[in-house]
């Protein structure tokens, strides 16, 4: 029974398939409703890119043109049956989606918006100029009649076809967004760097969003040519791309009903109020402005808000504040409630329960040499312009050790962690991890077994605590394909269930178990730091880089972090710790390395470091003539 709950919203759409039985006016059914269905498909695709991934696309009319022209040209030039052209349209448009998406890998905001505009205009120009293939500005009118067997799909019957296509697309979209894909989209939107450092490949999921979005739009394009039995370049103007954005924002992003409401209003209003057609752009421009600043969730957001307020009036046992604060639930949650975990205090819980890493091949087992250093840097150097921030750093972290990296502000500690986690590319030297050269994008380094936290907390603020940790567990879904998601395969559901249970355990471990459904941005600062540690542990690391985990924390929170570090160590994890709280450093560390002006000036046990003269002078200062030569040179 439970698995069906997630499909209730889709089932709610089904009665609308019967509309032609009650309304026979071809103009309404074929001219308006079928058009709405086709636009909903495009808007649903645009929602993946602009709503979930946060990349504005002003080029979707260009994608629609690719789909429409592919189908029209195959029908006209090669006399293909239209049904045969549909997969080709989808494929070609998906390929065009790669072109549209590649800039999104590196660009954001106005730069990306501009490239998508350029994409749409280039498509329009090519269509206009390829006279032989597209008939240029005249357009293709040789669109065949649609049949399915002996059944004609013309006139009002066309609506049934578009309706089925729309429901199919909305179903597929739900399957994608309510899965680890959806979490990856949102994580990349909220904090791309943190998402990548948590093991989410920007490359795969940004492009993936564009490709899926384009595939949907390709299907819409193949249908689009039957609206007027015409395919011409003027249909695919820049304004049309903007119209799709208006539909998306007006209806409300990240919502199936929002997509439908938006498309319906933009199609329906000008068609039914003929006298306003001349003021259409003013009205939609005004509506867009109004929505942006007064209805951030769009019309569907307003409806949800009203529904919640009304619901709260009738429900006494849960007060309205809690209801309003409860984030949207993933259907998976309803489908697979997290098993009741007996509430455990962080102090009594052991990490072994959730930590399942076999150390990378080559460590531990392959003899004393390998065990001597899990992580080793050789002459690691980075220069920003003329400033050498880290200079020929030799650092090694042994398996199972807590290694602290300390030094005055600006000595290059965080820069070192940024190099180790792939955020910065070193200008010289080598990093070896588990006896293999380490390098590449942050998500590769996360997969290799190095997780990190951030000095300036980098969480996904609008996502729940549970979802934040689930982003860290992204790697557990590596065997789940899109096909698994589309078909809701048992394997996909099993993995999701397992990941949720494990994420809950990790939250329990850091003492945040009962806040699992709270949004991360609502947490106090110290608890945000604990959540970052939970997310790092979710990545199954062999080495955790903690960048000032206790900064800004209260004494109680610091002692919690102290205990957590102890337990991480007990579980066999290695830790590289940057910290300014010296009592914490001296308490948990096995060894300490000290940086000053990008160079390592000392290394040893906490007790040795506390007595080291160079360390003392680096921290407290010393008269210039008493400085050791190297430090004097660096000054």
């Amino acid at each position, binding site marked *: 029974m439970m698995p069906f709950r997630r499909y209730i919203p889709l089932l709610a759409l089904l009665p609308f398939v019967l509309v032609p039985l009650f309304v026979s006016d071809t103009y309404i059914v074929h001219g308006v409703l079928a058009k709405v269905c086709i636009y909903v498909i495009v808007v649903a695709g645009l929602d993946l890119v602009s709503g979930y991934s946060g990349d504005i696309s002003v080029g979707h009319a260009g994608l629609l043109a690719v789909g429409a022209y592919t189908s029209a040209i195959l029908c006209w030039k090669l006399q293909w049956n239209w049904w045969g052209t549909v997969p080709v349209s989808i494929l070609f448009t998906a390929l065009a989606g790669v072109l549209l998406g590649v800039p999104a890998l590196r660009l954001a905001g106005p730069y990306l918006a501009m490239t998508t505009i350029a994409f749409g205009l280039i498509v329009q120009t090519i269509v206009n100029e390829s006279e032989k293939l597209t008939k240029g500005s005249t357009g293709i009118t040789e669109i065949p009649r649609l049949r399915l067997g002996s059944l004609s799909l013309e006139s009002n019957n066309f609506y049934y076809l578009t309706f089925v296509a729309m429901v199919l697309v909305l179903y597929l979209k739900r399957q994608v967004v309510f899965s680890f894909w959806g979490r990856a989209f949102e994580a990349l939107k909220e904090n791309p760097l943190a998402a990548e450092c948590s093991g989410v490949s920007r490359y795969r999921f940004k492009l993936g969003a564009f490709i899926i979005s384009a595939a949907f739009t390709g299907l819409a394009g193949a249908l689009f040519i039957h609206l007027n039995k015409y395919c011409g370049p003027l249909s695919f103007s820049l304004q049309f791309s903007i119209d799709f954005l208006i539909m998306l924002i007006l209806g409300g992003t990240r919502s199936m009903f929002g997509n439908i409401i938006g498309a319906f209003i933009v199609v329906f209003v000008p068609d039914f109020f003929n006298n306003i057609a001349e003021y259409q752009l003013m009205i939609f421009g005004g509506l867009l402005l109004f929505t*942006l600043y007064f209805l951030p969730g769009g019309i569907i957001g307003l409806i949800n808000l009203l529904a919640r307020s009304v619901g709260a009036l009738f429900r006494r046992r849960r007060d309205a504040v809690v209801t309003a604060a409860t984030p949207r639930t993933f259907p998976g949650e309803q489908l697979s409630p997290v098993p009741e975990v007996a509430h455990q205090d962080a102090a009594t819980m052991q990490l072994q329960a959730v930590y399942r890493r076999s150390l990378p091949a080559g460590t531990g087992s392959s003899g004393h040499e390998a065990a001597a250093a899990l992580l080793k840097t050789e002459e690691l150097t980075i220069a920003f312009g003329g400033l050498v921030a880290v200079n020929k750093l030799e650092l090694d972290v042994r398996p199972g050790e807590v290694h602290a990296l300390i030094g005055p502000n600006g000595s290059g500690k965080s820069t070192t962690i940024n190099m180790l986690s792939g955020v910065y590319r070193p200008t010289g030297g080598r990093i070896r991890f588990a006896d293999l050269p380490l390098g590449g994008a942050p998500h590769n380094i996360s997969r290799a077994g190095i997780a990190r936290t951030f000095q300036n907390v980098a969480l996904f603020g609008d996502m729940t605590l549970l979802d934040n940790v689930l982003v860290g567990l992204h790697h557990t879904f590596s065997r789940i394909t899109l096909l698994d998601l589309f078909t809701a395969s048992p394997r996909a559901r099993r993995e999701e269930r397992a990941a949720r249970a494990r994420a809950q355990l990790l939250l329990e471990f850091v003492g945040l178990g009962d806040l699992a459904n709270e949004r991360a941005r609502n947490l106090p600062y110290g608890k945000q730091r604990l959540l970052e540690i939970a997310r790092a542990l979710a990545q199954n690391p062999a080495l955790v880089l903690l960048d000032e985990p206790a900064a800004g924390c209260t004494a109680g929170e610091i002692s919690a972090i102290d205990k957590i570090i102890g337990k991480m160590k007990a579980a066999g994890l290695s830790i590289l710790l940057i910290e300014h709280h010296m009592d914490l450093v001296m308490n948990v560390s096995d060894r300490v390395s000290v940086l000053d002006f990008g160079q390592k000036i000392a290394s040893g046990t906490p007790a040795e470091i506390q007595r080291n003269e160079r360390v003392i002078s680096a921290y407290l200062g010393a008269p210039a003539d008493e400085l050791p030569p190297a430090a004097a040179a660096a000054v």
Partner: protein
Amino acid sequence: MSDLPQLILSGVALGMIYALLAFGYNITFLTSRTLNFAQGEFLMLGALVAFSISVVHKHNYLLGIGGALLIGIVLAVILERTAIRPALRTKSDVSWILATTALGIIARNVAERVWGTDDYRFPSPLGNAPLSLAGGAVRVLPQELLIIGAAAVIMISFELFRRGTILGKAVTAVATDKDAAALQGINVALIITLSFVISSVIAAVAGVLVGPLTLVGAGMGILLGVKAFAAAIIGGLESGLGVVAGGLILGLCEQFTARFISTGYKDTPGFVLLILVLLLKPAGLFGKRSIKKV
């Protein structure tokens, strides 16, 4: 190839129009990290207002320019209040991109209602007889020379304003560091408004300048605005000199494509160049790469 000098001159004139619009993008982007996606529509309204005053009502050409200046100021204030200021509070790129786009389509619709959807001829104040330069080897429209001269004057005067006056230095200060500027007693909101006023006025005047070369009408702005944005990114959105260079490169590219390849494809090279630049050197040809702090 005998028409080469002429081609270059036309390209530079067109490029100067892009450069003016791009210069406007640069000013507001530096002060507020936002820019006006309706810049092309502002150009269009400037051109149409001047057209109404100078051509329809046969008033002095300078009065037409005055009208364009005025409409530029009015539009800038509306834009800054309704689209930019609320978006700066939400700190989201999506809001200001969509909000300024929304204002753009409203502006276009208003223009369609007032002036209709037709295009009109806007005669140059200097006449349409081509001048012969260099002993008849180069024939050039006087309006093209006017564009080049006027654009240079506008951009140089802004640079002088920025370097030589206390208000201009405040603009530089806000562009460098908003918080530090605010701590020095600079009214940051006012400077941002000022930068939008300057940007919009430049766009409106660019409309008056380009009108005689194209036709004027409600649809004239959208593509010019988009291409000028491409030019700004090609040169480097954050570099004043870069956006001007970007404009010139784009203008020349288009003239050469139209002459040697096909007029139908004349809009394409700019966009292809844009995508290449963004993939190879995202900060633009003349922009400096900034290091992201983590």
